C-alpha cells in the first residue's frame, strides 16, 4: 500500500457511512530494530494547518482555545479501528459520538437549527 497516495487526505466515513472528515495526519511509531508501525489516523484543523505552515498551526490552535468548540483537539483513530481502505477510509466508530464532528455539531445546534426550516 502507498500510504501517502491511498490513505493521506482521503475521506473518512464512520460505520454508518457518514462523512466525518478526511485523513489530515498519520501517526507512526518508531520501534528499535523493528519496522515503524502505522499507529493512528488524525483528523482536525490543527493537524491540517501544521502541514501548511507551523505558524498557521499555532494561530489555529490559539483561535480554537479562545473560541473553539469543546474537544477541538485533533481526533485520533487507532489503526486497528480501520475496517477498509478503498475509495474512502472506513472506520469502526460512530462519528456523532466523537469530537471529530465538534464543529459540525456546534454549528448545527447554535446556528442552523435557529434558522427557520433548519431544525
Amino acid at each position, binding site marked *: *500500500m502507498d*500510504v501517502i*497516495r491511498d490513505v493521506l487526505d482521503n475521506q473518512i466515513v464512520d460505520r454508518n457511512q457518514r462523512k466525518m472528515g478526511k485523513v489530515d495526519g498519520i*501517526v*507512526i511509531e*518508531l*520501534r528499535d530494530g523493528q519496522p*515503524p508501525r*502505522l499507529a493512528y489516523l488524525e483528523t482536525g484543523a490543527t493537524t491540517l494547518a501544521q*502541514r501548511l505552515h507551523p505558524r498557521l498551526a499555532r494561530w489555529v490552535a490559539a483561535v480554537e482555545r479562545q473560541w473553539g468548540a469543546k474537544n477541538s483537539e485533533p481526533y485520533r483513530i487507532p489503526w486497528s479501528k480501520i475496517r477498509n481502505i478503498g475509495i474512502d477510509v472506513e472506520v469502526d466508530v460512530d462519528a456523532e459520538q466523537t469530537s471529530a464532528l465538534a464543529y459540525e455539531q456546534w454549528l448545527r445546534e447554535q446556528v442552523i437549527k435557529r434558522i427557520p426550516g433548519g431544525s
Partner: protein
Amino acid sequence: MAELHLELLLGKCVFDALGDRVGRIEEVRAEQQEDSWVILEYLIGVAAIVERLSAWNLGTSLLHFLGARKLNKSYRVPWNKLDLSNPDRPHLICSIDELKEISQQLEADES
C-alpha cells in the same frame, strides 16, 4: 517508542552519510504484518511523485517535454536504512549506491 507525524515527513530532504542531498521523501510504502501495518520503504525523488500520481504516460512525456531527460535521482529506501531520529533532517545510514533507483524499476514494469 517515539511517535512521528508521517505527513510532516513528506517533502523533507534526505541527506546521505556525507551530508549530500539525496532527494525529497514523496511516498511511503506499507504492508500488513500479522495484526499491524508496518512501513517497508520510503520513496525519494521526482519519479516518486509521478508514480504517486500514477500518470506515467502523461507525466513522463511532460517531463521529457520540459527537458528532463532522465529521472535518475529517484530511489527507494528500505525502512532500516533511513534514520528518523531527527525528523527535520532525515539521513541515510548507507551509501546511495546501495539504493535501488525507481526509474529502472518502472521501465521494467512498463515492458
